[in-house]
């Protein structure tokens, strides 16, 4: 018998028991919906991380004071005094893979404008920092190298700080007070949003590092530097060179721990991607369990259906259905249930992920592959879990089946 006829028979049989068919599908609907929704959440997270990593600037290398040895007693990079501007210049001079580098001298700052005041992070750096971080100004400009050399009292505001202190007014050219010192605002940066770690990257104020070192913190060292390699591959190759150079400059004997650490953006990216992939896989596999449970539900109902319709099967055989006709009918019934459930599940998953991204403000990314795989998988579930009941139906002896009470 041809496929269209079998499909028609199967659809009629399912239509005779609409409520049961719907409930049977529910397992698959939930399973597929869960897979689609969780994978879209996972992929959304991955996308977020990638965005964050890109916003840190490509080819970036991060060199910070302090030990990065896991375990062991670790000193925060605030406390270690060994990293200096001389190290930065040495790196630029002796590691040609590094194209540019900017220092960071960190301090907390109480910043006041008229009757507004705000406690924020103050970072002393050089103008090329904004290039390395790929972070342009929204208005005004960044401070100049001359102003760095002169340790001028100028600053560039992150948008969060600008909004808090100035609301809608234009901050450019205004004077704010940090500690006891007046600072002229020369620029406001574009918003960078949340970092990968979830902190507000715009809640910050930048000033020349010389100013922060001499007038705010009273120190001579720097806490870390943001460097940029010529290419992404170069950033990885530069790590051992920088390490060797700094160990030599800091006179660290072989066997002793580094008093600094070097990390590249691609390492961070790999790590973050890996974490997210594992997350997505984990979520996806938990969701697949529900898909399998849905499949077992189909098998369960199909077995009940075979038993319940034993006489019907007997009649079909008596009027000329072959074993394969019966088997195909039940198989097509199971696959129809699971495929229809799969389609509905995809819709439910799409709606679910749309709701999640709307109400939880979590980005979701619908993957074409997730949908395709869910569709194929739901069909496969039908074939797999429908086969045994269908086989059972086909193997019935028509005489026994007709006599079945």
């Amino acid at each position: 018998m041809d496929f269209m006829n079998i499909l028609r028979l199967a659809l009629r049989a399912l239509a005779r028991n609409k409520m049961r068919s719907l409930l049977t599908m529910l397992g698959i609907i939930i399973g597929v919906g869960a897979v689609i929704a969780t994978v879209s959440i996972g992929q959304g997270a991955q996308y977020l991380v990638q965005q964050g990593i890109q916003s840190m600037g490509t080819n970036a290398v991060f060199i910070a004071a302090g030990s990065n040895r896991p375990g062991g007693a670790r000193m925060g990079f605030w406390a270690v005094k060994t990293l200096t501007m001389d190290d930065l210049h040495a790196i630029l001079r002796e590691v040609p893979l590094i194209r540019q580098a900017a220092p960071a001298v960190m301090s907390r700052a109480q910043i006041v404008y008229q009757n507004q005041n705000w406690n924020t992070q103050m970072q002393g750096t050089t103008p090329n920092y904004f290039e390395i971080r790929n972070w342009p100004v929204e208005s005004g400009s960044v401070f100049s190298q001359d102003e760095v050399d002169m340790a001028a009292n100028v600053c560039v505001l992150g948008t969060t700080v600008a909004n808090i202190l100035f609301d809608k007014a234009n901050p450019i050219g205004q004077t704010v007070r940090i500690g006891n010192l007046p600072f002229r605002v020369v620029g406001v940066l574009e918003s960078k949003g949340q970092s990968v770690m979830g902190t507000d990257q715009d809640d910050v104020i930048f000033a020349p590092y010389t100013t922060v070192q001499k007038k705010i913190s009273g120190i001579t060292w720097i806490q870390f530097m943001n460097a940029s390699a010529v290419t992404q591959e170069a950033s990885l190759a530069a790590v051992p060179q920088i390490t060797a150079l700094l160990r030599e400059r800091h006179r660290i004997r072989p066997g002793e721990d580094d008093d600094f650490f070097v990390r590249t953006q691609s390492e961070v990216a790999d790590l973050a991607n890996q974490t997210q992939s594992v997350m997505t896989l984990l979520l996806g596999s938990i969701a697949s369990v529900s898909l399998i449970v849905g499949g077992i539900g189909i098998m369960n109902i199909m077995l009940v259906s075979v038993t319940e319709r034993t006489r019907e099967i007997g009649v079909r055989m008596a009027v000329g259905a072959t074993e394969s006709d019966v088997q195909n009918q039940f198989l097509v019934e199971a696959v129809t249930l699971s495929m229809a459930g799969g389609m509905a599940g995809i819709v439910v998953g799409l709606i679910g992920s749309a709701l999640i991204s709307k109400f939880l403000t979590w980005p979701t990314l619908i993957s074409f592959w997730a949908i395709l795989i869910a569709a194929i998988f739901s069909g496969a579930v039908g074939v797999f879990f429908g086969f045994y009941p269908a086989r059972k139906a086909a193997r019935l002896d028509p005489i026994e089946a007709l006599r079945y009470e």
Partner: protein
Amino acid sequence: MESPNGNKPPAHSGDGVLIRLENVHKTYDLGEIQVHALRGVSLEIKRGEFVAIMGSSGSGKSTLMNILGCLDRPTKGRYFLDGTDVSQFSKIELARIRNRKLGFVFQQFNLLSRTSALENVELPTVYAGIPQAERTKRAQESLARVGLSDRADHHPSQLSGGQQQRVAIARALVNHPQILLADEPTGNLDSRTSVEIMDILQRLNDEEGLTVVIVTHEADISLYAKRALEFRDGRIKRDSLTQNRLIAKDVLPTLPALSDADDEEETAAAPGARDAPPAD
């Protein structure tokens, strides 16, 4: 032990022979014991005959019916259906024979629930690979033959027992079979409805020359057949032409009219409700 006696059918296989069994045995192997359901049955049924197979339960009549109906194969012996030896046919070939040459009517009607009468009648045509338009046409014709054209859209639950059995007969006729096999077709019906069903079978037999074989354990029903086979212990004990055959058409007017109650109660009829049919 005795050889079949009574009115012996012609032994030679002329052109009119539709069914011929040659020394058919059926043995069920139940592990420790073997059950001999048929112990050497030889039989000929000609085209246009109306045969009733009688016997108590365990006599082998149901086993014979299953073999005649190509639902089962003999352990030993040969079965010629319309000149073809089908005793060694494969399951698929048997399914095809059932579909094309045989029509079944059961005691329990065995209609598909929540399915219209028309679709029920259509069922065998689906497995015959007939196109949809032709199927519907044939099913309508078939329903007309049993006088149920007006109930085509009704579901079995909306039909009386007699009507359900008529739908079942229409289903059996839809592929224009050579033989109609009915297993206790009146077993679930009250006496008047039983006679109505026998009337339909007699008409099909008389007017269209359809060969009809029924299994029944009720002597009065067997009187509507032209020939009766009585089974005992897996053998044909008696094979006789019916003396004083009953004609349902003539019997019906003598029965009390129950047609008003037709739609509700006939499936519930107890065997005791069946009065002995009047002698003709």
